[in-house]
């Protein structure tokens, strides 16, 4: 031991400690740089010029007011779906259901096309529809969890599929545009979010997203209810001892998260020019993956509303700039390669959070393993007897 034989494990531990000990923002920054480096390496190996490609990415993401607006527009729904995940993590659960809740929320928002109302009020009605629909879509998994102990991971994934096909059905058969079968009814002008920067997708829906993020921050850290939710998430046994009704906090956080995801759907249906409609024909392309990307945004933002706002700007930029990469220069990067690079960046960003989660996951696995083995042994013993 005088020589210290286990040097490399110490190095690893040191690196781990430094990475996780850094200030959260710094940590995400380091991860982003690592991700970009890996992406650069991949592009280099396949014979593309990483400098040019990243320059294109940067220009495409934040090169001017037009680019900024596009990036923010793409980040807007991600803020909301990230909140869905983050609220439930704070309450001690993994809610994977933002994907389905967003789709259902978008369909509910499209329903405003079925009736007329004054400008402004029409918009608000649409938002309420979407939020309520999203929340309702999370009720069943929440109730199953609370009453029967059904894992919310499984049930929300199932509900994602149910939600997706239900939304498709609605888009193709029920609220379909009679003139153009590939898309839904168009949201009327009275219920549209005004466009903030002419010629871009950036609409006033970003205010809704930022507002909800601030509201969630306030709810979780400055109200009694938020205190209860966080306590129950961190130590359910102590929370029960402290008179907190855990079932209630679970349901509340699920409903809040569902409402946020529903609103994400509304921002797409009511704030996305030029169509202001959802394309059922293409299999809901605008809505697909919003929920899953939101989980990545939440992890990078460390499940904190303010962190999520920053992470959403970054992810929006990646999305917007990624499109530019494929048109840039003499040897542009193909779309597939861009996806690979994005994947590398997202993975690198998620790794610090995964490192933190890893011991818990490992412990769970070990426990399961031991219990199973013991069962098997007792059973074989019983068999012998």
């Amino acid at each position, binding site marked *: *031991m*005088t020589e*210290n034989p*286990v040097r490399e*494990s*110490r190095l690893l*531990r040191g690196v781990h400690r430094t990475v996780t*000990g850094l200030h959260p923002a710094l940590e995400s920054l380091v991860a982003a740089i690592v991700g970009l480096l890996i992406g650069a390496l991949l592009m280099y190996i396949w014979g593309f010029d990483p400098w040019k490609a990243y320059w294109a990415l940067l220009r495409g993401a934040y090169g001017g007011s037009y680019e900024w607006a596009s990036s923010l527009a793409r980040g807007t729904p991600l803020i909301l779906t990230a909140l869905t995940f983050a609220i439930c993590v704070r309450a001690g659960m993994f809610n994977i259901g933002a994907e389905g809740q967003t789709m259902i929320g978008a369909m509910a928002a499209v329903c405003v096309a079925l009736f007329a109302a004054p400008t402004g009020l029409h918009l608000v009605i649409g938002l309420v529809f979407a939020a309520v629909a999203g929340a309702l879509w999370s009720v069943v998994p929440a109730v199953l969890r609370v009453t029967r102990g059904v894992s919310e991971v499984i049930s929300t994934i199932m509900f994602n599929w149910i939600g997706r096909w239900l939304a498709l059905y609605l888009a193709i058969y029920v609220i379909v545009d009679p003139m153009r079968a590939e898309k839904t009814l168009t949201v009327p002008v009275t219920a549209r979010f005004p466009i903030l920067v002419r010629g871009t997708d950036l609409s006033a829906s970003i205010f809704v997203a930022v507002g909800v993020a601030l509201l969630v921050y306030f709810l979780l850290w*400055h*109200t*009694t*209810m*938020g*205190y*209860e939710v*966080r*306590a129950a998430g*961190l*130590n359910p*046994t*102590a*929370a*029960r*001892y*402290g*008179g*907190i*009704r855990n079932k209630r906090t679970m349901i509340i956080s699920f409903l809040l998260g569902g409402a946020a995801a529903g609103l994400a759907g509304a921002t797409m249906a009511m704030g996305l020019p030029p169509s202001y409609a959802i394309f059922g024909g293409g299999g809901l392309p605008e809505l697909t993956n919003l929920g899953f990307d939101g989980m990545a945004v939440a992890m990078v933002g460390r499940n904190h509303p303010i962190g999520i706002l920053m992470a959403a700007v970054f992810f929006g930029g990646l999305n917007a700039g990624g499109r530019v990469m494929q048109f840039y220069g003499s040897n542009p990067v193909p779309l597939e390669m861009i996806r690979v690079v994005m994947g590398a960046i997202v993975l690198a960003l998620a790794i610090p959070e995964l490192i933190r989660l890893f011991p818990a996951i490992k*412990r769970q696995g*070990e*426990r399961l*393993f*031991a*219990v199973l*083995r*013991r069962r098997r042994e007792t059973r074989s013993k019983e068999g012998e007897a």
Partner: protein
Amino acid sequence: MNENAGPGARQNADGYFLRAEGITKIYSDGTVALKEATLEIHPREIIGLLGENGAGKTTLTKILSGLLPPSHGRVVSPRGPVRFANPREALDFGIGMVHQHFALVGTFTATENVALSHEKPFSRIRLAKTRERLEALMEESGLRVPLDVPVEKLAVGEQQRVEILKVLSRDVQLLILDEPTSVLTPLEVDELFALLRKLKEKGTSVILITHKLKEVQSITDRIIVLRHGEMVGDVRTAEATAERLAQLMVGKTLDGAPTAVELSAEQLPRVLSATRKKGSSGEGILHVIDLVARGNTGELAVNGVTFDVHGGEIFGIAGVEGNGQSELVECLTGLRVPVAGTATIRGKNILGKDPRQIYRLGVAHVPEDRWRLGLVLPFTLAENAILGVHRWKEFQGPFGILRRGKVNQHVRELMNRFDIQATGPNAPAKSLSGGNQQKLIVGRELAKDPAIVVASQPTRGLDIGAARYIRDLLIEMRDNGRAILLVSADLDEVLALADRLAIMYEGQFMTLCRPDSLNREQIGMLMGGVACKEVA
């Protein structure tokens, strides 16, 4: 006051096993937990580590066992400086530590838990080997535990034995025990000490942290005293008087003649009862009739218990841990639903109610497991200080806002009143020393101004001064007509405080009497389940 050069220097200068040189520990929030601590550990000695809550005892031992790196200073062995990156490296070197809070996996058996500290823990060979080793060890050390039962089903004393076996299975040269006795009954303490003596004869050194002077004096060879992170004393046990130690710890003489409860357990009941007003039996507050409850594994943990607690009395429940006390308390505080029986507080049924409703009936509960139940560790001190009272009117603003200002004010009052040492209301509860965490919980509960306090091991891990303060406070509350249900494995404490005493064994009360009507042998027999009719 610095006596570092004392006995260490007198012994053979090169004969040490390990030496800590100028160890300083500064935590990331700037807390200086240790200042230039220097000590030498020799083979074949038992060292007592004394100090008030937050003095740095746990920090020092964590550094020695590789769990924390020191900020400055180094650890040296006769062969040169050593650095441990993690506890496993320290174990390989021969240093093992049993922590204040156990680190066992509840669903694992003892064998599996021990195997975990080895490479490839779950291979069949490893498990078989571990089992063999454990059986030999149990034979040798006399520490008996069931090897094939998940440890969560074991009593706390047994779990501790698993922890010790885990460390011993690695052939350690230095065994560090952080407050091992606070959860043990006197009999278990005797067993533990017998083992320590045996280990010492075989050449192992032991560092023992405890707040009980009686224990330190009975078993250690040398006593090291820490105060606010500084080593203020290193004295031979034979030369140390209780007064001297107490003085070293606090830096001044403790006032008042009857010093710590631990010093004079035999005459203590008399000392205290002289100062207490006669336990006036007020109105009955808690009535329990024929309570039956199942434990976590479905066994009958509480098997027909009947008693009542009046205002103005302290009702003590003693017994070896794991005889149904925890389950009984959980039934009374809304954490467990009993199978049969009735329990009322001031005539209102409490069985099956949730902890919120029970709190509203005027019940405060100091839980026995401060990490699982009492605290939300990642929360701040302030957030923990309002757990359970967070819905108090004075904390509520408009729109359900939690009024931070009022909360912090309440917390500062608690910190002053109960001498909770921390950097401030926003310090994470994790960063508090074990004793200060306990003070936080006790303070929070007693500040509820309850009609009845259900206190499990309320002074566990508290230093002498703090423990005395809490005991005095319990007596004061009793004198003000409150009812107190005191459950403790610390027999001295129960005997000193209780007006009436029940001894619990296998889910039943062996006896229910006045504490002074029994002598210690009789109590010991009752706790072991041997009924002696004449005393009942």
